[in-house]
């Protein structure tokens, strides 16, 4: 049942959907049509301050087991010549923020990382049983009741976004807060990013500011040569980032 308070807490649109969610048929809810959305994420490297709010929020929202990360933040230190490999660290995924940099000079920046929700995702391709799935609205999810824990998907992900849940013994990854975005909320990481470095993007919604951003800014994806169709769009991404 929906209590009055529950009603208050949910957005009006989400409130309409709630009974359907409870009934296990969210796709038939009148306000959320999965065919009307195509989800991605915009990450602006020049805005990330490495506070770790996104990692903490993700962990709390999704009960991410300690020592594993659905999202994490990396700190890069690039010295100069293209031959030099960058110095990168990500202590505990940045969940407690970052200690002062041991370096001076050079180019220094944070890069938030997460599942790229690839259109041609290698992890979905290799899942032997269909436990990793593409939702009709462009999100890559794991069916934890069906996954057999073979970890082929973990091997296939070029971005290191997957892990085996130590207790459930099934594959686990960023769900793009599917339980939130289908109810009109943004993801936990975006909700809690203080600088707006991460923004959920609905590429099928013509009113989404993402379209204007993509038109007017230079945007990259990670490891484009692997042609995964990544939908985590990075602005101001340095060439050294891998």
């Amino acid at each position: 049942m929906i209590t009055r308070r529950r009603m208050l807490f949910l957005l009006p649109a989400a409130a309409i959907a709630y009974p359907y969610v409870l009934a296990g048929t969210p796709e038939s809810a009148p306000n959320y049509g999965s065919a009307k959305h195509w989800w991605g994420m915009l990450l602006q490297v020049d805005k990330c301050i490495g506070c770790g709010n996104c990692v903490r929020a993700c962990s709390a929202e999704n009960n991410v087991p300690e020592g594993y990360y659905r999202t994490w933040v990396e700190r890069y230190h690039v010295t100069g010549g293209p031959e030099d490999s960058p110095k990168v660290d990500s202590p505990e995924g940045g969940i407690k923020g970052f200690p002062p940099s041991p370096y001076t000079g050079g180019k220094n920046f944070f890069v938030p990382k997460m599942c790229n929700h690839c259109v041609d995702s290698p992890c979905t391709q290799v899942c032997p049983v269909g436990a990793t799935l593409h939702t009709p609205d462009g999100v890559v999810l794991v069916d934890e009741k069906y996954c057999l824990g073979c970890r082929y998907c973990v091997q296939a992900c070029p971005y290191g976004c997957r892990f085996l849940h130590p207790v459930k013994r099934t594959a686990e990854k960023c769900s793009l807060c599917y339980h939130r975005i289908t109810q009109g909320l943004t993801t936990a990481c975006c909700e809690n990013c203080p600088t707006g470095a991460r923004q959920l993007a609905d590429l099928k919604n013509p009113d989404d500011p993402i379209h204007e951003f993509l038109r007017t800014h230079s945007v990259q994806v990670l490891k484009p040569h692997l042609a995964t169709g990544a939908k985590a769009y990075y602005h101001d991404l340095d060439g050294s980032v891998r």
Partner: protein
Amino acid sequence: MLNVTDDFPVMTYFCLTYKAARKPGGGLPGVSLATFKDAEHIVRLAVASAIVLVIFLLVRAHFIPKSFGQYGHYRGDALAELTAKPIHYAGHQTCEQCHSDVLDVKKMGKHAGVNCEGCHGPQAKHAEDPGAGKPVLPDTKVLCARCHEANLAKPKNFPQVVTADHSGGEACKTCHQPHSPLLAPGEKKKS
């Protein structure tokens, strides 16, 4: 015996053995009783295999989840299950419905883009029942440093301080109002 030849796999094996048993270059192409008798054990094996195969297919059909293939090669029900996971962060829109006074202060200041739960933690329980699970007031000494402690990797235009030098251990809120942190013109830095 001949009715089993209706079975496709049996037929395949039979053809195979019939061909194999035919003497090279000799005899008329046709199924003689003797040829069949010599291949009887193969037919028996084929029938046994066919039975196993049929049992396998029946068992398989029985165990495939009903909703499998509804949207793609996965359990359709998984979408509903994943959608129904509990929410922990209520979202700033929800907070603002009751705490509009804070919103009024916040939207004028530098922290207009910082959402409530980023500092106050996940409050879905509190939003559902404001009486229970009252949010704890964060310690600004720790909280503010998370973002504003100086770090080489932070964007240059982002306001950052070495807290030890800046405040000497004093809580930030002694001088700054967290919801709108810029100091008023009259309160400009003492030094």
